[in-house]
């Protein structure tokens, strides 16, 4: 058996950690590249969204390298993305690729547990006693690494706008993440985290700069994966913006586990509540949360909001319409970026530069 998983943001780091620690053979798909996208586009329906195509490309590359078991997070309707796993299964089967599919349910319901039970029953036959014994420890290592990756990324978001040498933060973050990825024991991991944090903190910084505060909101795959959003987070940071986002793997896992009510779930609940002034019901996926977050960010004194969505994404298209009104009502600049397979890095750069300049004008006028 060889497990594989998509490349979303730093997800591959902690998925790999679980498999590695539990001694389960795995294949990390090659880093998402133009080839990945080309494969994804070739084999999927033309009008489906960019995240679908990217993830499908990851799977094809991994299966071609010899993986035979796919682990994928499912979500739920009404977003088409909620049916991702089902559609991707059909496409991969049509391509004649052989594999098994394991969906991590978005919400732990009895139905989901039963479905997973069926899937895992098969897998269990192939796993050794040692694998099963080590699995909880693997989960723990994976969780630790996920939290470490997120902490490093959040630190990078803070220091990027005040870096003196442009691009230095990104280089150091990459290095720090690779240390976390390579750590095999809890002790080495702890050292890697500390070393990584120090690497970012010790970078040459200009503390006299006052960065703008901008929240990135929108469809979660697009927000979380730099390959899908063409590095919007990095681009904004390098233009002197301190970026915040609430979409992280831990947030979504916590949400599905319905745990940590006092902390993360409540943030989403607050966003959801705030959206009620504009939306009478749950549109689905991140729509209500996007609208609500923009409102609350304005109240919190943020300078702006960047709204990301894949082309033809239903819930976020709804959100973008409402966000123009929210921007006016709450006096907060909102930039919606629609992403698709075209190479529009230049255009995105133009829009982001103009957006940051607009914030500068606003600050000067105040």
């Amino acid at each position, binding site marked *: 058996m060889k497990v594989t998983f998509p490349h979303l943001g730093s997800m591959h780091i902690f998925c790999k950690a679980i498999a590695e620690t539990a001694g389960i053979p795995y294949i990390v798909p090659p880093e998402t590249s133009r080839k990945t996208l080309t494969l994804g586009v070739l084999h999927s329906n033309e009008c489906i969204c960019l995240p679908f195509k990217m993830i499908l490309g990851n799977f094809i590359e991994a299966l071609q390298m010899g993986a035979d078991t796919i682990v994928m997070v499912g979500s739920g309707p009404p977003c088409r993305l909620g049916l991702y796993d089902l559609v991707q299964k059909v496409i991969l089967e049509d391509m004649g690729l052989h594999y098994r599919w394991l969906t991590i349910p978005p919400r732990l319901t009895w139905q989901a547990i039963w479905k997973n039970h069926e899937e895992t029953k098969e897998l269990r036959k192939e796993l050794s006693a040692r694998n099963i014994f080590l699995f909880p420890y693997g989960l723990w290592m994976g969780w630790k690494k996920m939290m470490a990756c997120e902490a490093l990324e959040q630190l990078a978001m803070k220091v990027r706008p005040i870096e003196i040498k442009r691009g230095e933060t990104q280089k150091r973050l990459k290095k720090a993440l690779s240390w976390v990825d390579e750590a095999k024991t809890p002790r080495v991991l702890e050292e890697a985290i500390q070393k990584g944090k120090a690497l970012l903190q010790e970078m040459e910084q200009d503390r006299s700069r006052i960065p703008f505060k901008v929240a990135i909101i929108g469809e979660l795959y697009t927000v979380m994966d730099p390959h899908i959003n063409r590095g919007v987070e990095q681009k904004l940071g390098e233009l002197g913006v301190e970026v915040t986002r609430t979409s992280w793997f831990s947030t979504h896992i916590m949400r599905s586990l319905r745990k940590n009510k006092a902390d993360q779930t409540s943030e989403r609940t607050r966003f959801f509540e705030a959206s009620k002034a504009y939306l009478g019901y749950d549109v689905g996926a991140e729509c209500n949360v996007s609208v609500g977050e923009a409102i609350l960010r304005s109240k919190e004194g943020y300078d702006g909001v960047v709204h990301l969505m894949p082309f033809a994404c239903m819930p976020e298209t709804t959100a973008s319409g409402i966000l123009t009104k929210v921007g006016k009502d709450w006096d907060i600049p909102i930039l919606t970026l629609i992403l698709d397979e075209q190479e529009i890095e230049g255009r995105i750069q*133009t829009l982001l530069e103009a957006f940051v300049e607009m914030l500068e004008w606003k600050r000067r006028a105040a």
Partner: protein
Amino acid sequence: MANYLGIDVGSITTKLVVMNESDQILAKCYIRNSGRPIEAIQQGIEEVLTQLGKTVPIDGVATTGSARHLAAYLVGGDLIKNEITAHAIAVIDFLPEAKTIIEIGGQDSKVIVLRNSVVVDFAMNTVCAAGTGSFLDQQAARLGISIEAFGDLAIKANHPVRIAGRCTVFAETDMIHKQQIGHSVEDIVAGLCDSLVKNYLNNVCRGKEILSPIVFQGGVAANRGIQKALERELEVSFIIPEHFDVMGAIGAAKLVKKAKLSKTQFRGFDLPRKSCSTRGFECGECENQCEVIELLVDHQVVACWGDLCERYHHSHID
């Protein structure tokens, strides 16, 4: 007196402006790229030199437009600025009370919302080039009329036909249908103008507050058919600046003037006589297979870009 050069290299046309310290336009040109921006820039420099009569000292060069980086590497630009800011700067000096800028260019269309001479909101088409000049260009070519005559033909129409405005590819299907059932060319052309304006207002301006005074600029602003269609849809009149076609270049020149540089990197007016070319290669270091581009001026590599990891990237300006 100090002089500044502003260059705006868009997807379809290249615009150059030489402006002096007191914002007088000494020379300007507007030429088609025909897919060869380097040649267009060289040609543009040649043309402004002819208009100037002799070389004048240049104290700063700024570039804008979608090929602003290429232009800066080629001519030795001192400042690279996005076209949204450049257009806004040009209008704020021209008409400080302006509240809306409508800019329709070849591949881009933008709306910029100004209040108290400050940009407060903007939008630009992203994934799709519907509602831009290139659509008119294509259809003009298909109908065998020059783009310059297009607008005048449109205002002669008696009954502009209805053409679906959602997508230009859909619009073309609709338009061919209208042509095959016998509508006159004038009515079809006017219908196209209506469809482009509706597309622009629905896609780019959606949710934006379009208040007067409105400034209409960009290459398409010269098209009388579009002017009429826009006026009809907005139900207000707008102002077309004298230099409507080179506003981006003017904005760039103004920005470099404001930057107060001590020394310019300008390669000089003899650039058109130098051999300028690019060569590309595919990097094989990773799966991205970046297409790396090198710019050569007089057989010397002056800049290199196109690599995602910036392994080869270099130029005089970064």
